[in-house]
């Protein structure tokens, strides 16, 4: 049973990775397009222990750093923190509410952007513009995509959504 559950989780994550690299480039504005890779990390992190989630965050961050090496290590740092906090937050709040999930994902995107930008030494108006305009918009689209994924795969992810 546990093996089946793990296989289904792995399949959902593979689908999200495929969406990141195949669907996302086809979406009109890449700055606000949903970040399926971060969504995959959050979905995984809320189903494993914080230590495992931190390792997953570190590895997925390294992948992103290799694709955008403007400041190598920034995404690894950000995703490590996001993964750990997501797993820890899930253990503390223990909510199966769609709105809470959406807020969780939105906050994850925003916090990831904050850490990446600060680690990349972005300051001033450029930082504010990104954090007040683009990051919230990307967080919103990612949260909507996350809600769709949770609803579609609720049986596979063993989620009992509250009405």
């Amino acid at each position, binding site marked *: 049973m546990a093996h089946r559950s793990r296989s289904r989780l792995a399949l959902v994550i593979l689908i999200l990775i495929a969406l990141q690299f195949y669907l*996302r480039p086809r979406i009109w504005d890449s700055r606000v*397009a949903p970040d399926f890779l971060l969504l995959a990390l959050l979905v995984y992190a809320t189903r494993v222990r914080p230590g495992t989630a931190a390792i997953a965050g570190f590895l997925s961050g390294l992948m992103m750093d290799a694709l955008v090496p403007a400041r190598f*290590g920034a995404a690894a*740092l950000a995703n490590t923190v996001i993964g750990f906090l997501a*797993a820890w937050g899930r253990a503390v709040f223990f909510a199966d509410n769609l709105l809470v999930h959406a807020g969780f994902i939105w906050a994850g995107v925003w916090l990831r952007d904050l850490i*990446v930008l600060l680690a990349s*030494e972005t300051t001033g108006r450029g930082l504010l513009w990104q954090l007040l305009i683009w990051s919230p918009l990307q967080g919103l689209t990612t949260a909507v995509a996350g809600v769709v994924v949770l609803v579609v795969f609720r049986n596979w992810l063993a989620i009992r959504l509250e009405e």
Partner: protein
Amino acid sequence: MFEYPERSRSRRDTIAFLVCLVLACGALFAPAPQADAMARAIRTTVLVPLIWLQTRAEEGKASRSRLAAIQAQRDSLARMAQLVPELRDENGGLRALLGLSQRLPTRFVPAEILHQSQPTDGRTLLLNVGTADGVQPFQPVVAPEGLLGVISSAESHSSIALTWAHPEFRASAYTEGDGVFGIVASSTPGASDEPLLELRGVPYRDSVPPGTLVLSSGLGGVYPHGIPLGRVIGVARELTGWERVYLVRPAANPGQAAHALVLLDGGDRAVDSAYPASGGP
């Protein structure tokens, strides 16, 4: 022995988190050659299928417009084949009359830009061409509007371009008209809510009016002579009696560009003729 299993697991979680944090900070502060080597190793192994997938997605996105263009070209070719010499003369005359640009007088390879979800995407760009296409480090990357950046590393089927938005970008430049020389670099963070360039090292005695076109000078051998970098929008700051630094609105936007050309001859051949003459601010 099994008295505190939860505490033990919690301690292991904290240790794993701290180890990952230390490794991430190590990567963050690693010297540039080591960081580049790590990034390259990841791109040429685990990321190969994902970059391939994204390349196919970009090609699929552009395929409809390409198909229409190819059909139009095919329809025109049969007719044009009979009239090539006349058309060539007529084309040259019309281009001169309208002030249109000429073809790039240098070898180039077209590239798709594979944008990523990181907020720092735009400082570096992932391109779907690599050493198999003739791409090498230090080759300029241009868009129809002007300079995007320079290739910083190349693998067999992908490469990374460092754009003008990167803090380490520098290009020797001159202004159209008066020919004032300076160094163009990414603007100091916080100077504006949009990414801008700075024209640095302009002697205090020279003044550059707003709207002046800034072009690559060709000095240094990386960027060819004549690629538009942007237009002057005002004075950023001045060191009294020594130099002025001008703010420049960039000609090309790496965050929005979908396609680019990598110039294979590097800075060897001037490309002035490929860009339209300045029409004022």
